[in-house]
């Protein structure tokens, strides 16, 4: 078999159903092997960045490893943002790049880039395949590393001469690495201590993150929440981990979290952190964060524990297993009636809300999408104000239904990610909530959608600004709107020119029917909502402030 065929066979054996990519010179032998190949489906994007984000979106929705394929040099560097994005959000991904032939590596050959060097700090691991005999084993190892422990992207750089070399296909046994053994079960002694602390607590709060979704432990979390009675708040990455309409749910916390979630965690005497990493967008000013709270921190990545806050009981392990262990040790409910009254008081005192204005409000659009889809859609987003409104105003009830760039904050992520999401969950309605700025960053993927009949709905919350930056300029830079007013094409005509459907909405009364029409349309739809230009995302905690120092609005 040729190296290129070994690659495809190895991918197939890893259960790959879908690869996103873009051809080029140094990956030609692999694309030649892909010609009329039927082992898995290949989707040609219009930009390598789109391929990486689509693979990421697919991985987030399915829990499987996303795969993208590009050529050397610019093809590989165009994947970089997508790889960094997946790394920050712990998304399992395997990126495969062509490379100049081994004899030319280091010679500044045409379309050569040291992509293993470039991606070293943004991959969980990466490989340069120098010998065809290693190829199948490297693919196997790459999938193993990408999908186990704290997942992440792995890159395989494949020189052209290795793609054309011949070798027997030998599928190795499951990888065993002496240097990599993720720990899944929590230390029993620590679990006992944690259970004791929970039972003795008077003001506990569950603070959960993306680790719940990654480990598939929503059911266990629900049981833990109901067994302890503790209120539950989540990070941006934790959206969907816990049903947002549950009576114990406090919603998202942090910079744009609910005021009652922020006040609650500040008043807590015990934080049970699971699969979350006390990111600066969550804690605000660290030395003022939750001053009375003891912390139990459950995370699969030891380096996330005690990185930002002092942890009293660290537990390294997989959320699913550790919560199950914890449930076994919890003999009684803590006495927290007073605390729950206090939290309910906070909920009443600081409700979420917005003031109606003349023009369409973005929050209203999200609420309408929520109503029309009964909270059952997959919501992808770009990055900016629309992203926060999508996080705040849609009632997520299941994991893997909110697909958004958390750690890296990548504008241009949502649209290609929605392609991956729709292909991963073809029976679901998939929305990409976008801003007029973000959507223009990977708008070329309209062609990918139309060509492959990928039926995603793009709701553009068009306010004529790079809204989140404008909001900061308004609040912290004396309204000096430096390069944030932004022009856009006619999104309706643009969608139509690609063969998609465009709808423009300028009145509040048209919002609902436009959403319904978009969902009923068997095509990609762009809805261009002309919204209130200077609406802000509230609540808001200014960067570097304590998280109970909350600005704004009604909240």
């Amino acid at each position, binding site marked *: 078999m040729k190296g290129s065929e070994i690659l495809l066979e190895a991918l197939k054996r890893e259960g790959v159903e879908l690869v996103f990519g873009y051809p080029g010179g140094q990956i030609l032998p692999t694309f030649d092997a892909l010609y009329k190949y039927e082992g898995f489906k290949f989707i040609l994007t219009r930009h390598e960045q789109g391929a990486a984000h689509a693979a990421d979106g697919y991985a987030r929705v399915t829990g499987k490893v996303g795969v993208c394929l590009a050529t050397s040099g610019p093809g590989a560097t165009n994947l970089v943002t997508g790889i960094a994005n997946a790394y920050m959000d712990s998304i399992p991904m395997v990126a495969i790049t062509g490379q100049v032939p081994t004899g030319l590596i280091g010679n500044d050959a045409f379309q050569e880039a040291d992509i*293993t*060097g470039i991606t*070293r*700090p943004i991959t*969980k*691991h990466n490989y*340069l395949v120098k010998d065809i005999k290693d190829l199948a084993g490297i693919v196997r190892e790459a999938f193993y*590393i990408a999908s186990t422990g704290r997942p992440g992207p792995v890159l395989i750089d494949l020189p052209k001469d290795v793609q054309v070399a011949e070798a027997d296909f030998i599928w190795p046994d499951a990888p065993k*690495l*002496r*240097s*990599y053994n993720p720990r899944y079960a929590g230390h029993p002694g620590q679990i006992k201590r944690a259970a004791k602390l929970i039972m003795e607590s008077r003001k506990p709060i569950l603070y959960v993150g993306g680790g719940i979704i990654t480990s598939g432990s929503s059911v266990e979390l629900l049981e833990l929440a109901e067994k302890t009675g503790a209120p539950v708040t989540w990070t941006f990455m934790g959206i969907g981990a816990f049903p947002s309409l549950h009576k114990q749910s406090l919603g998202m916390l942090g910079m744009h979290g609910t005021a009652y979630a922020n006040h609650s965690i500040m008043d807590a005497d015990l934080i049970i952190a699971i699969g979350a990493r006390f990111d600066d967008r969550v804690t605000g000013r660290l030395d003022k964060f939750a001053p009375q709270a003891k912390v139990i921190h459950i995370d699969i*990545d*030891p*380096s996330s524990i*005690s*990185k930002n806050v002092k942890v009293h009981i660290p537990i390294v392990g997989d959320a699913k297993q550790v919560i199950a262990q914890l449930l076994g040790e919890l003999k009684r409910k803590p006495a927290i009636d007073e605390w729950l009254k206090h939290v309910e008081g906070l909920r009443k005192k600081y409700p979420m809300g917005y003031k109606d204005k003349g023009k369409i409000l973005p929050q209203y659009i999200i609420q309408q999408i929520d109503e029309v889809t009964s909270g059952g859609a997959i919501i992808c987003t770009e990055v900016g104000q629309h992203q926060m409104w999508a996080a705040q105003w849609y009632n997520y009830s299941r994991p893997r239904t909110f697909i958004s760039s958390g750690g890296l904050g990548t504008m241009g992520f949502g649209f290609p990610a929605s392609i991956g999401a729709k292909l991963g969950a073809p029976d679901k309605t998939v929305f990409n909530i976008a801003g007029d700025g973000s959507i223009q960053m990977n708008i070329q993927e309209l062609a990918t959608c139309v060509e492959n009949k990928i039926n995603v709905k793009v709701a553009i919350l068009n306010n004529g600004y790079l809204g989140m930056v404008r909001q900061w300029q308004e609040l912290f830079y004396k309204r000096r709107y430096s390069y944030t007013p932004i022009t856009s094409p006619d999104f309706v005509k643009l969608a139509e020119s690609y063969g998609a459907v465009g709808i423009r909405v300028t009145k509040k009364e048209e919002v609902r029917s436009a959403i319904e029409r978009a969902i009923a349309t068997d095509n990609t739809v762009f809805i261009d909502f002309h919204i209130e230009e200077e609406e802000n995302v509230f609540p808001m905690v200014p960067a570097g402030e304590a998280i109970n120092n909350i600005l704004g609005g009604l909240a």
Partner: protein
Amino acid sequence: MRHTISVLVENKFGVLARIAGLFSARGYNIASLAVSETLDPLVSYMTIVVEAKDENVLEQINKQLNKLIDVITVTDFTKKEHIDRELVLAKVKYSSREKAKLENIFKKYVGKIIQRKGNMAIIEAVGEGHQIKSLLDELSKFEIQELVRTGKLAISN
């Protein structure tokens, strides 16, 4: 404070870059670094001396090193009994009347003059950090033209 850490790694290309990148990406300074193969040619041993301003930084270094796929074990010698040594090579200029003085120095240290050319001696010395330091203090009376050090090597005892 300086800490000595030893790291056992898979002997693969790029592994040194991964380790070095981990330090540079976080702005941690490596004071010295010594790398070589072990008896098992698939494994390399690195001794790294690092400046860490507090326990948290050291703990993160430890955890981040362990997170690298090619890292097999990490040992922090700060709180562990160990033996460490460093080798120094230097070119020292001396005049004929300083000859005895130079030779005398080496009576106190594990070291010797390995080569003389004209009024230039190449010396070697092995010792613990403080011994190397005091040797270098004594040699500073001479004109040192070139100096190379291996960095610290450490082994547990």
